């Protein structure tokens, strides 16, 4: 029965961590655009604006 003394707080802590993570994600706008973000991860290039000379080379 003693193990409960560790396990219960651990359970609550981990669960709370998950909840806090979710609320943080929600607050930082990650749930604003569910459809867009779902496909965005499939684009593997994080392209920065190319400088003009490179544009010509392409």
């Amino acid at each position: 029965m003693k193990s409960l003394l560790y396990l219960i707080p651990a359970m609550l802590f981990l669960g709370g961590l998950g909840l806090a993570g979710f609320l943080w994600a929600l607050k930082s706008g990650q749930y604003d655009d569910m459809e867009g973000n779902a496909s965005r991860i499939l684009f593997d290039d994080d392209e920065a604006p190319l400088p003009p000379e490179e544009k010509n080379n392409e």
Partner: protein
Amino acid sequence: MTTATCQHCGDPILAHSDGGEGFCCKGCRGAYELINGLGLKSYYDRRVLDPEAKALRPDEEGAVIDYRAHIIEEDGGTNTLYLMVEGIHCAACVWLIETALGRQDGVQQARVNMSTRRLVLKWQNEGLDPNQVVAIITGLGYRLVPYDPCLLNSENEKGERELLKAMAVAGFAAANVMLFSVSVWAGYSQGMQDSTRDLMHWLSALVALPAVAYSGRPFYRSALTALRLGRLNMDVPISLAVLLAAGMSLFQVINGAEHAYFDSSISLLFFLLVGRYLDRRARGRARGAAEHLLGLNAVAVTVINEDGTKSLLPPDQVHEDMTVLCAAGERVAVDGVIIDGQSDIDTSLISGESVPVMVRCEDQVFAGTTNLSGPIKIRVTATGEGTLLAEIVRLMEEAEAGRANYVALADRVARYYAPVVHVLALVTFFYWLIPGGIVWNEALLNAIAVLIITCPCALALAVPVVQVIASGRLMRQGILVKTGTALERLSHVSNVVFDKTGTLTLGRAELINQDEFSQEELELAASLAGASKHPLSRALCRAVPHIAIRSSVQEVPGCGLEADGVRLGSRAWCGNVDAPLSEGPELWLAVEGKEAKCLKFADHLRSDAKDVIEKLKSRGYGIHLLSGDRVEPAQKVANDLSIENWQAGCSPRDKCDALEKMDHSLMVGDGLNDAPALAAAHVSLSPSTAIDVSQTTADAVFQGDKLRPVLEVLGVARKADILVKQNFGLAFAYNAITIPLAMAGYVTPLIAAVAMSTSSLVVIANALRLSRGKLS
């Protein structure tokens, strides 16, 4: 022969395409070159992500909006432009827009929200011309409308976020409290010590109480509002049960009692929040369409000052008796009288008339119409609220107010259900207290059990779940349902009323007597027509594509086109006044020394219109046609589709009056002249080609060139209605079994929790039947 497809949009290329090799039109060619020029060719690979997606065909006739007026300056020299994007259909579009904008010098951030179709564009204050930057996106075929974020950061979005937070907290708490409860139930049979049980109960309280306080707020608020107005709604028993159960359980725990109801109270909250969140989300996207309305006032007006200079003014600064210049292709922004110039005016927005009207000096023009062929000067007689346009909008609002009285089935049920539940709980309490002779807290416990078990978990899910699934099914077919009660109202429909132009027909003219002309004559006509934006000229160009425009074409406003002794235009101008009138719109082609010939046009019916009307009739709907157009075209359409009840020349008010005489009417329409009727009808439907006001007013919007969505939406609504009723039946059956048990005091937390979840699952499973399969 294999059909070649356009390299940009993927549509088959027709013979004589004017886009050159590999393209179906000039617009696609332009877009392809633009994408290539930016080095974004991988867009075409990305598009494979969604095989249904096609690139847009850029609109060759797009109006120019000045975006500079909509820039919002922020601290630190950052400029921001908020835009709604029309035409996004897959992630490749999002990528293309973001990358194309991101590659412009000076642009700091370009971010598209795919769910709401909004674009936020930020750049540093360095003399960057937003119109140029944005022109790239319009060149790709997307349409952009500026919006004001302050007006839009609406209650709805905040509400949705709050529900999601509440749901997360309730979910977390419910999962943990349930674990403690299972431990207690398991321990009960294995001789758990009282002290351990109390510890578990205390831990449950620790988790559940803050969660109940936090997650329940949406319900408490609504319940309080209802009580303040002296009414009962579904949220009253919910709030009461949750709070009583939590409070009572705390009391029990303090006294070291055997049972606590924390798990029931928090998991009830969780289930209800899930239902409510789904309900709200399903309509989130559709709401976006309504917000396009905000873009309507974005047109600046050219005013001619007394000293002859011109200035651009926002519409609200234009007054009566000012002189306004309206260039060809521009929308008229005021009501007034023409004092100089002649032109053709497209009045389809106001009157539903599909053929442009010729106007000259002393004629009246109205705000909302489009000036097609020549510049005109207008003396303003009314602006803003005084215009005919505003009058129509007012009429629409009036009509809408009438419909707002509709009460959703769930609320009607709640009206009777809530008092019954409370009375039952009260009866239970007093029964156990007085004849039962047990202590008050045990009696109260039984009463709470009644509240929990009757708690409208299944009942509260019954409607939203069906609606979410029905909306999802319709959305996959390009039909957006916007209002919450639309499906319900659709299921009552007994009369279907159609508008003609743009609803039964496609709303654009097509040449019909091509074979009466030789190829040379057609090419001659098309070489002139290319110079004009008149709808009939565009139709002629579509019929005879790939013809170079003559360089010497002169447009004579209000008459037609002229080049090298060839005239293309109105009957009076081109010659043969005595020829018999044709049924639809016409153009005359006059070559010097030859007899003038008539090009006839017709607005084609939607390809499946006949079929759909027949099916609707066979299902017992009354079919009506109310058109603002002239008698002849309306009669022809009515005859072609064998619609017996038709009426032509209807003003917006006539349409409203006609609808008032019918009960349970479904109005299908697209023009501004239909908007009041759309609002007055029991329920309304609009094609997505409709103007913004109509889309906003309609309960649902459908996409595509087919009329079939009308059938589908009625079918789904009927099916949804049946399922909702079945769900209510299931919920009541469940209550009929469990309420007596609860009143008799047999319900332990375990039974309450299991019963509650089961009933919810059954309701959800029943609703899922709507997502697949054919409709009868």
